[in-house]
């Protein structure tokens, strides 16, 4: 099929804008593949791999490159023209207020016109993110780095620089935070309250803050640290600083710390600091072999759900240690009814996640009920799924992982990758349960459950062709105040015939109960 490329010099658009443009171009008639990228070496390599480009010289990293594959030359040329027209018509990114003639071109320029700035939110490509963050710290700002692909040595240098001037560096790869009630990056609209969160996981932060809201309490600050903060090299720099901030914060009565298992010495240091912070602290280091559920001011939570419940109990002055949480809200007869719809040979669960921490937590919970599950990033190396494009046995995927998202939008923004996989799993005669997370809030897809309902319906039709009826288990991470509205999203999923539970832990336990009940 014919391909063609066009270079537009010195036009910069951020990756999200380019992904949207790529998606629009791919929808044009006669176009089979389309990609608009900033022409960095890494991006050009992706186009090679996608077969969109054979060789390319003359494009600089500051150039915008459009590559189109189509059924005929005419469609390809039309798509290139369309791309250029869309880029030229795009409104300027923003203005700096009514008095500004033009938008500032650098952080320093922005600060000249906005001297009261507190924080820089950085989501530029990763290779430039550390430099932007360094500037921000040197200019006296706190920083949230949404970007990923920042070298760990750069993260360390940045956090050391920030420590010297007592600046906070959230990230890199910090997807979510709520500061003074203002959502940053991907975040939900949660009630204000007295529970402070420090999280090394964006979806972990979103899940716990949403459940706190759902349970009738609220959040003072939710500080993200980035996914690598608790490894030995970074030594929990941001989590320790966040803990100190919340310990000193008058609005905060209870503190929640969330992470995947940290390096042992880092965990010990954080626990020691938490023990001396003078406020009740809930620690949820998923999958770590924590000791007693409670000692002194520290409560240990095994799941994100439990962390939220413990924090809410502590905020209400209730002892959290005795509380029993429902497994998933479904009784034995209901589970039997679900199982009765399955045919012979339908025996495995397939978790298709958009949130990395959700997939990890699900694997931990499923391991206890149905044994280890396969995954491209499993808990134990022996369960590694080598071909990520084909599930085997019980399988859990994090579709937001780099392996899946290279050159594509994240599944929280664009559902096509996940919809294709839902269809593929439904056609697999061994699939009994398809487990799906839906994350709403600022930054996410504007109507994710509606989009997913359509995918569930076509997957069900495909399964019906082989006489099968897979069970869809879903949950929505969000709040009623989110732009997408929690209840509306849940209703859309129910109308599509999915089982809707309250949170990830419930979803994983229900999937486990169905598979082990076969």
């Amino acid at each position, binding site marked *: 099929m014919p391909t063609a490329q066009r270079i537009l010099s*010195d036009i*910069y658009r*951020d*990756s*999200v*804008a380019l992904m949207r443009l790529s998606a629009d171009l791919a929808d044009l008639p006669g176009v089979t593949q389309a990609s608009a990228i*900033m022409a960095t070496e890494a991006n050009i390599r992706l186009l090679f791999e996608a077969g969109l480009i054979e060789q390319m010289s003359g494009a*600089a*990293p*500051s150039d915008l490159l459009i590559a189109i594959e189509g059924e005929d030359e005419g469609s390809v040329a039309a798509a290139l023209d369309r791309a250029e027209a869309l880029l030229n018509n795009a409104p300027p*990114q*923003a203005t*700096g*207020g009514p008095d500004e*003639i033009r*938008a*500032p*071109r*650098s*952080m*320093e*320029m*922005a*600060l000249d016109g*906005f001297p*009261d*700035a*507190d*924080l*820089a*939110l*950085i*989501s*530029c490509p990763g*290779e*430039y993110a*550390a*430099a*932007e963050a*360094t*500037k*921000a710290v*040197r*200019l*006296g*700002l*706190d920083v949230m780095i949404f*970007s990923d692909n920042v070298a760990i040595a750069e993260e360390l240098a940045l956090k050391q620089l920030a420590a010297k001037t007592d600046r906070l560096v959230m990230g890199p790869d910090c997807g979510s935070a709520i*500061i*003074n*009630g*203002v*959502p*940053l990056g991907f975040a939900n*609209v949660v009630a204000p309250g007295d529970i402070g969160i420090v999280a090394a996981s964006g979806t972990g932060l979103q899940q716990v803050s949403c459940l706190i809201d759902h349970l009738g309490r609220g959040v003072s*600050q939710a500080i993200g640290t980035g996914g690598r903060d608790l490894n030995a090299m970074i030594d929990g720099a941001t989590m320790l600083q966040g803990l100190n*901030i919340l310990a000193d*914060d008058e609005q905060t009565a209870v503190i929640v710390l969330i992470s995947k298992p940290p390096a042992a010495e880092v965990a010990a240091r954080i626990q020691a600091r938490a023990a001396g912070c003078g406020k009740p602290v809930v620690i949820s280091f998923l999958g770590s072999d924590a000791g007693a559920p409670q000692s002194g001011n520290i409560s240990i939570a095994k799941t994100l759900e439990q962390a939220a419940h413990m924090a809410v109990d502590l905020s209400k002055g209730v002892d959290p240690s005795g509380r029993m949480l429902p497994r998933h809200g479904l009784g034995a007869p209901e589970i039997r009814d679900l199982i009765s719809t399955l045919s012979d040979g339908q025996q495995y669960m397939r978790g298709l996640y958009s949130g990395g921490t959700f997939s990890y937590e699900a694997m931990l919970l499923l391991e206890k009920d149905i044994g280890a599950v396969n995954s491209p990033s499993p808990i134990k190396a022996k369960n590694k799924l080598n071909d990520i494009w084909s599930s085997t046995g019980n399988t859990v995927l994090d579709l937001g992982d780099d392996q899946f998202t290279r050159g594509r939008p994240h599944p929280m923004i664009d559902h096509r990758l996940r919809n294709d996989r839902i269809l593929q799993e439904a056609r697999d005669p061994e699939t009994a349960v398809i487990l799906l997370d839906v994350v709403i809030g*600022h*930054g996410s897809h504007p109507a994710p459950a509606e989009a997913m309902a359509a995918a569930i319906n076509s997957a069900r039709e495909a399964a019906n062709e082989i006489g099968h009826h897979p069970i869809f288990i879903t949950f929505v991470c969000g709040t009623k105040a989110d732009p997408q509205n929690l209840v509306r999203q849940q209703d859309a999923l129910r109308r599509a015939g999915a089982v809707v539970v309250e949170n990830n832990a419930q979803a994983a336990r229900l999937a486990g109960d169905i598979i082990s009940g076969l």
Partner: protein
Amino acid sequence: MYGKPPQSLNVINVGVGSFADVINSAGGQAVNVDWRPPAGGDAKAARALAGLVNDPAIDQANRTALEKFLSAKPVLEGVERAGDVIPGMGERTILHSGPPVDWQDVCGPVSGAVIGAVMFEGWARDRDAAAALLRHGEVTIEPCHHHSTVGPMAGITSPSMPVWVVSNATGGNKAFANLNEGLGKVLRFGANSPEVIDRLQWMATTLASVLAAALAASDGIDIRTIMAQALYMGDEVHNRNAAATGLLFKQLVSHALRSGLPVEDIAQAMEFIAGNDHFFLNVSMAACKSMLDAAHGVPGSTMVTAMARNGVEFGIRVSGCGDQWFTTSAPVVDGLYFPSYSMADAAPDLGDSAITETAGLGGFAMAASPAIVQFVGGTPADAIARSREMQAITIGRNNALTIPALDFAGTASGIDVRKVVDTGILPIINTGIAHKEAGIGQIGAGITRAPMACFTKAILSLFETHSGSPA
């Protein structure tokens, strides 16, 4: 950041623009940076830059350098024989514009002009003999900038040519520039026919003696005052010098008449000045050079003290980087061409005249010169926008040189390498365009930008030097 009332957070957003919308709708305040990769996408230079932003030692060094520039007071003292006054200029030396270049690499106009200068000096009888001398290294060619000198286009200055002597009354340093020959077949565009050489001889004798006598009778002419007036009269003192030439003429004419020289000589000299609206350009350049040399050599300063082109390379010098040049290929200017010429005929960017932009004039002062905007395409509104834009990459303003259309704001002064690399806003330059072949002359004019690569190289060098010293 913390301890503020709920729903208050002020954010500078770099990257995904929609994150700012969320913040604004949730009660916070966010400003989007119109971001693009710094340093033209060179991640290493972007990191080096980050290490230099908001550095107190650099900021202090830049304030010092800028103050030396602003307080410089260029005074036109005289006209002298180049070989007698230009420091370090040997008797067999020819100076050229831009960064250093080897004889075998020079562009067409420079080649023609150097050969013309050799014949003017009488070192060779014809072009072939002149070329042979140069090929055998019997004549040295060196940058004007290495000798406190500047020259437009080819910038060719040989020992017997007359030069303007401009003295900085505050700093004591001097700067020099050759005299402007006018338009048409002229040495600075590479022409070297007998009429060109004859004119140079006349300039070295009759014109030089009239100007020298007139200036000797004056107390020295304050050039900054002429430039300040000219900015109010439609000049930007680079590509438009009509007003400034008239102002200079007014100051010279009575002194010349009283000099006692033959009236016919004086009349010829005055006619020559009156017939060339660019006559002031070389004075303007020498004045800018004297102001910028005053600011050169401040350790740690990231202020640009020269931008210059030799028709092959574009180069910049930086106050805190000593004698280093940071160079890259000179661009061919995408300007307006005279009928029958196009970019294919053009020599790459040429001349020391970007010293005016380095000093905040020329393209930086476009807002003062609506006429030239029309000449090079664009509207007066574009001119004002361009002058405003330059404020974003400079350290301060020159309140001695103000622009009415900018509410009498001082010209943007002291280009900061860091700000250029950070914002991607490249210094704007008004320029004439030379034909790539020697002697054909000017074929167009346009607005161009200094290339990013010079600034990227400077940032890497500054970072290397700076990271060795306490921050």
